């Protein structure tokens, strides 16, 4: 039932080893959190899974998705998987949307690429997705440009684009970090509901352990490109084995979780 197995993934930029021997697995429909400070190699690991690592990086290791090795595949073969079977949501929803393309076109773009939808069918699908992600006034929003939407609305568009083709795996890279705290909760709830409905597996990348513990059942903790701890969310939060994890948990207790007693962490 393993959907994605990443084995000994190593990413090097020049002489710099940015991701070092990272291994983890995600089962079908399961949710994994990857947590770590910025620069700890989380994003590069995620991009390497679908072969989108930037030029000039060397990647080694194995990425098996649905029984098929992805590393070493041609760009064309990977493009057929991206957006269709494995989709991504990005951190900054304004920068991840094309400023001169209408919202409806952007949402239907993956459908047109992978399912060859006609213009009319694509427009209808885009409108349907605007409703699903609860964008206000869908008939007008499909014809709007990104700068006319709020941050939270833009990220809803990002989620619609990612889920349009009904992918088996969604990689969400800090999807709520750029949003206001009040909006964060709404967007997270929406993401949660939609992937539960579609049975999509999730890799949730964040630096916020309080946030990830609400979403993911198991967590990988990364630091300086290495995995320092890996386990079920409850165990990891209750009894962190690595001192870095302990620091993260302690920090989260002081801020996000307030003064809850140490053994009663809200899940």
């Amino acid at each position, binding site marked *: 039932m393993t959907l994605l197995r990443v084995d000994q993934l190593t990413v090097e930029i020049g002489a710099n080893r940015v991701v070092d021997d990272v291994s983890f697995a995600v089962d079908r429909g399961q949710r994994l959190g990857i947590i770590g400070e910025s620069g700890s190699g989380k994003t590069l690991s995620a*991009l390497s899974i*679908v072969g*989108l690592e930037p*030029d*000039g990086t060397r990647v080694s290791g194995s990425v098996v998705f649905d029984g098929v090795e992805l590393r070493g595949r041609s*760009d*064309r073969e990977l*493009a*057929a*998987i*991206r*957006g*269709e079977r494995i*989709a*991504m949501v*990005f*951190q*900054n929803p304004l*920068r*991840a*949307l*094309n*400023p*001169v*393309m209408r919202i409806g076109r952007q949402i239907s*773009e*993956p459908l047109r*690429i*992978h399912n060859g939808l006609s213009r009319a069918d694509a427009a209808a699908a885009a409108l349907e997705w605007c409703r699903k992600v609860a964008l206000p006034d869908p008939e007008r929003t499909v014809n709007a440009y990104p700068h006319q939407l709020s941050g939270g609305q833009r990220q809803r568009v*990002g989620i619609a*684009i990612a889920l349009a083709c009904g992918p088996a795996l969604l990689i969400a890279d800090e999807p709520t970090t750029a949003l206001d705290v009040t909006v964060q909760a709404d967007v997270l709830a929406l993401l949660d509901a939609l992937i539960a409905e579609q049975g999509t597996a999730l890799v949730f990348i964040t630096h916020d352990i309080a946030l990830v513990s609400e979403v993911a059942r198991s967590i990988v903790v990364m630091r300086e490109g290495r995995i320092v701890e890996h386990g079920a969310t409850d165990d990891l939060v209750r009894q962190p084995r690595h001192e870095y994890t302990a620091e993260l948990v302690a920090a989260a207790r002081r801020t996000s979780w307030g003064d809850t007693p140490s053994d009663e962490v809200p899940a």
Partner: protein
Amino acid sequence: MRHVWRSWSGRIGAVLVGGVVLAALVSLAWTPYDPKKVDPGDRWQPISWDHWFGTDGGGKDLFTQVLVGSRTTLLVAGVSVLIAAVIGITLGVLSAISPRWVGEGLAHVIDVLIALPTLILALVLVAALKGSVWTVSLAVGIGFGVVLARVVRGEVARVLTNDYILAAGASGSSTWRTVWRHILPNIAPTVIVQLSLFAGLAVLAEAALSYLGLTPVGTPSWGRMLEGLQQSVTVHPGAVVFPGLAVVLATLGFNLLGDGLREAVDPQLRGRSATASPTFTSVVNIGTDGGGGP
């Protein structure tokens, strides 16, 4: 276009360019005199109701000549801008999206071509092909095209750093689909502004190259007129005023239109001077071309 009208430069530019287009259209249907008719009895006439701009040493009506010459001006401006757009966008996009060593190789080739003066290129082409307005357009188009290629390369490189390009890749968009759907629409404002400025410079370049005799004798052209009138300029200084003014106003018109376009698209180009500096380079380039031209 509505936004262009908002600025004074856009408004004046649109009127001037519109005037040249109107002159060309009118000249197709009607001219006061036969443009080829030589009338020895009417030599060097001053401005009058019969001859609005006077006549030249062959007794040809200068107003008719200016009207007909606007066709050549527009033709060269249009064709050279089209050639520049094709060359500039193709080379610029290719050099920006190719693997590093190919892209940088192309960039060096572009830099070398930019250093080659358009005048030399035009002379070579006229020698190899044959002197015509098409050869002149080709030379000017290639000259502008390589300048545009450098601008486009920079713009594409800027667009490529955006997350929406990465997001397009994550949606399974192929390289060419990404170029077509995401990159070209985002560099379009800069390219359009640049091309309208090139059109102004093309007017100047055509006049200069015709003045130097790179278009065939008998081509109705403002540059050709100036060349003919220049020989008697000390005796009949008034005759060169109108064709000269036509060149100046047409060039000014395209340049102001370009400025207006830039202001119109500025909200999206906020805080960047990408369109300003290349214009300067191209002005310098043409400046050397013009030589002793009008």
